[in-house]
């Protein structure tokens, strides 16, 4: 798709949207620097993420979007050599404080990955397993149904819950991954390019789903698709890289603001497709 024409087509989308109602801050990055060994991947990132809003991370490849996203639920802990300084606050608590268990954090801040990666188990087990390991004691059948309904997948799979999840289509698999994240009842869902491996129809279903889910969850989504960012997000963070390949947060605004009146020239060039 031609990106210049896309930028021109943006205004009508925004005309339908009302001004974003402010809500409380759920996550706050406070001068976050992230290193992989001696390489600084992201520096001086500070931002607030608001409850029940969709926040999009955009920016050129390698600018550290995924890195920042993973720092929010401490998935970076699993990468050898990754270190973070600065503070990441979740409901006012420092996620990187000594006594915080990353396992508990990841239940409350779930993650959906770029490549659909359901467990090689039945559809039912995909949902139930996460609940079970987190000590869920309710009705599993009900949990599976409500989770699949929330992920708009129930009608397609209700007759084959025992079937292996790997036999679903890519788009269905990704919605299953969202359902299994929902099943452990998180407050925040992080999505790293959740639709980039999907065809346009599956992509638009994911986008509809995101708009639906933000009623109950706070969503942070990384995307390379400007149209997607403008369609689903309330706020957009634009990341850039400096000459050392270190990423930084260039601009963070309400999405409409950022797309229509970017403050920085780089931002404007990026969203109009001049580089990236």
């Amino acid at each position: 798709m031609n990106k210049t024409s896309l930028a021109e087509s943006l205004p009508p989308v925004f005309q339908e949207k009302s001004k974003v109602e402010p809500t409380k801050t759920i996550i706050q990055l406070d001068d976050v620097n992230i290193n992989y060994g001696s390489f600084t991947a992201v520096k001086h990132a500070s931002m607030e993420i608001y409850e029940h809003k969709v926040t999009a991370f955009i920016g050129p490849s390698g600018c550290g979007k995924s890195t920042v996203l993973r720092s929010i639920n401490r998935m970076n802990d699993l990468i050898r050599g990754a270190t973070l300084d600065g503070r990441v606050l979740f409901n006012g608590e420092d996620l990187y404080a000594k006594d915080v268990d990353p396992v508990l954090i990841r239940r409350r801040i779930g993650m959906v990955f770029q490549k659909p990666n359901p467990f090689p188990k039945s559809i039912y087990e995909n949902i139930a397993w996460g609940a079970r390991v987190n000590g869920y004691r309710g009705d599993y059948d009900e949990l599976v149904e409500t989770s699949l309904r929330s992920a708009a997948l129930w009608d397609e799979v209700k007759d084959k819950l025992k079937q292996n999840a790997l036999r679903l289509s890519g788009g269905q698999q990704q919605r299953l991954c969202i359902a299994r994240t929902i099943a452990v009842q998180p407050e925040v869902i992080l999505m790293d390019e959740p639709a980039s491996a999907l065809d346009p129809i599956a992509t638009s279903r994911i986008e509809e789903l995101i708009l639906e889910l933000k009623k109950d969850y706070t969503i942070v989504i990384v995307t390379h698709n400007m149209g997607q960012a403008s369609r689903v997000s309330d706020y957009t963070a634009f990341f850039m890289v400096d000459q050392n390949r270190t990423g930084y947060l260039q601009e963070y605004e309400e999405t409409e603001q950022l797309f229509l009146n970017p403050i920085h020239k780089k931002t404007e060039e990026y969203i109009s497709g001049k580089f990236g």
Partner: protein
Amino acid sequence: MQNSVSFGSEENLLSMMERRRKAGVVWQAVFLFSTSLAILFLILLLFSVIDSTFGFAAIRYEKKPSELMVGKSQLSDFSRQELEETAKTHLSSGILRRVEYEKPIADRTDKDLIGILEQYVLQPSVLRTWGLWASLTKQGEINEYLFDQGDAVLTFKSWLTIDFLFADQSANPLYAGIRTAMLGSLWIILITFLFAFPIGVGSAIYLEEYAKPTRLTRLLQLNIFNLSAVPSIIYGLLGLAVFVRAMETFTSGSLFSGVADTTANGRTILSGGLTLGLLVLPIIIINTQEALKAVPDSLRMSSYGIGATKWQTIWGQVLPVSIDRILTGTILALSRALGETAPLVVIGASTFISVDPSGIFSKFTTLPIQIYQWSARPQGAYRNVAGAAIIALLILLMALNSSAIILRDKLSKKKRMEA
């Protein structure tokens, strides 16, 4: 055009093509040759085993049935009463006592009695045996031999029989069997499995999932690789020093009260199983590590992503998808242990025992040791017995290997379908 210049003229291209094609043909021929050679040797091996397992045997009996009962040329012509009578009069008192002790003569079947009378009264002994090939081709020579011997009887024998599998050792090759050795092998393998599987899989999980890649773990890894290449006899020496000698009170069972059979002095099934366990441990570790490496990281990430702990991730996600490869590799490692001879000889496996192992503190012999020992005997007939035992061992190994393959297919099919 630029291209055609740098690739040479049309003619050059054609002649070069000819050379390239020829090189391919030559290599293909080399590969074909080596494959055929391998198959040829395999066939030779099979042939030599089969050759010694079937064939004619010249047998001489000490007594003829007619000498026992006038007018009867075969034991099977005897009446029940005649059989019992002959047993009581002709068996030596020692043997009679043993036979009566195991089961009173009156309670034994006719077939049973005939077998006993044949073995202890008629007393067949093998004069000479011929392989299958010789039996089929050297009829003249065989007849000549029989003629020279006078009273020898020629029978075509399959040395591998059901009785052979269930009989114990014997000084007479006609009555020797592999039950004791087979039970020894199975016991040993059981101990090997119980020892090496949990420890091997556990170490592999630690190395693959937990250990940080420090210099120490790299050193450890290197050592495991080297250990898997150490000749098995060295494991035998290790087992002798550690299990048989140093840990004797434990491996002989004398540590545990109530164990009567402590005559083995640490040369027990337990020591043998632990020694072979050490031998296959590095193989199981390496194989399990490979199986764990094959599990994509994305699976682990998605598990962590919903709040699973490390152990929940390993137990609930990683092991279920790798268990088929882990088990297959373990079975193959065990089948290697099943065929091992040298380390068991070093730790002092018995070569001649006719008492079945009754537990982990018993003396033992195993199939390969039995085969080795039989083939070293001077009497030719033992070579036929060894051949039969080899076939039994090969069948056992093949059963193990195919169960590994079946298991793998079953599990991976289940994983794929999970209907």
